[in-house]
């Protein structure tokens, strides 16, 4: 059953911000806008049951992002806003500086990861997706999700260690 306009708007309002954030971390804000638009145009044409809308949306977004990475090498140069100063007004300036510096190094290391690994970490840490949900979105098995998440975390840790040493 196709969604009515009201249902469609409700789905958009509920999921578009999260999908945009997910896509923007993978492909950049400008591309994320186009990808999210494509996802919802596909939703308009598809007949997705109400209880399967969320995994369907993430699945389509994930695959569009991965396809985008495969098609262009611009993935590593997308502009993402800097980590804002989140320190409290009375925070130690040195602590704030170290936190910003670590976040910058973290984001650089994160962007160097393969897009599939970036997506796994984002889905797990930012979207609180379970292993089963991640498996449904990415098409990996649950066991593969488990081991890939471990390898991704380890790769990130080693990249940060390497950066620190340099």
């Amino acid at each position, binding site marked *: 059953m196709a969604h009515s306009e009201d249902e469609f708007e409700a789905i958009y309002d509920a999921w578009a911000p999260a999908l945009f954030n997910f896509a*923007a971390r993978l492909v950049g804000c400008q591309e994320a806008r186009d990808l999210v*638009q494509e996802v919802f*145009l596909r939703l308009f044409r598809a007949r997705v049951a109400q209880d399967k809308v969320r995994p369907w949306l993430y699945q389509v977004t994930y695959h569009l992002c991965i396809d985008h990475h495969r098609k262009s090498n611009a993935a590593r140069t997308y502009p993402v806003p800097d980590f804002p100063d989140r320190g409290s007004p009375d925070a130690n300036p040195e602590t704030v500086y170290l936190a910003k510096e670590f976040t910058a190094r973290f984001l650089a290391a994160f962007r160097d990861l393969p897009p599939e690994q970036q997506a796994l970490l984002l889905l797990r840490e930012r979207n609180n997706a379970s292993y089963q949900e991640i498996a449904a979105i990415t098409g990996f098995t649950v066991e593969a999700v488990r081991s890939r998440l471990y390898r991704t975390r*380890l790769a990130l840790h080693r990249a940060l260690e390497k950066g620190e040493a340099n």
Partner: protein
Amino acid sequence: MADCSYWEYQTSLALDGELSPGANDEMFRHLAECPHCRLVKDAFEKSAQVLRALPDLADPDLLAGLEHDIIQKTYRTRRKLNGRLLWPAAALLVAFTAANLWLGPLWQRPALLAAAVAQGNRLELTFNQPMDGTSWPETVTKTGITAGPEYAPRVGSSSPAAPLSLQATANSLAGPEFGPARGGPATSANPALPQTAQSLPAPAAGGSSAIKHSDDLAPSHPLTGPTRTFSAVAPPAAAPPYTVTRQGNTIVVSFAGPLPQGPVQILIPASVRDRWGRPLGQAYLIVIDHGKITIKSP
């Protein structure tokens, strides 16, 4: 260090809440003894914290504009398209209905002889369309039956029913037997055709006596003109007397004697039409072979 990859993996699972309480306790016992694994665990946790603390990139204005664009491209476009398609679709429907009322059902096949059945001395010819009720008298009075080898389908010269063939100079053949038997309209315009057919002599064996204008059959000569081959010039054979009646879209031909055998031509007057006004009138060729009937044409 070599053994620690297992504990690193366990640390990752513990971070996701995937370890059982027993495995969790075991992992913490290892962490208490292994500074390397404690470092890895801290790094995993810090990465998760940083990722969770990253700001949202979605700008509400950008998302509102995007929603507007998507709705325009989907629901509004479909609504506009539905409005635009309504009138052409309605016009097409009206035109189709009018054409059906005026010309008859467009999905119907044209009127044709659908079946021919022999029962005793009766020949029943059924058409695939009901006939026009006003033209039935003409069906009865003007339907012509002629029989003979000249109507045989051209299946090969070895067939016993093959048409005669002779050579003559161009334009030298003339006479009533060469016209009505071939031309549909000329024959159908002649209501006395059955009688004409009956008045003609039956062809003799070999067909030579059927050739009336023997003086026209001068041998080809270079001075008198080119030689051409004509076929089916034998005159119509006599068919036994018959009467024609109509039952619905079936024409029943009752012969006074036994059914003629071999090729039989049935000429329906051009004025006979089906109920939609399409003409049934044309020449049909059937072959009767001891009760078995084959429709050869059209």
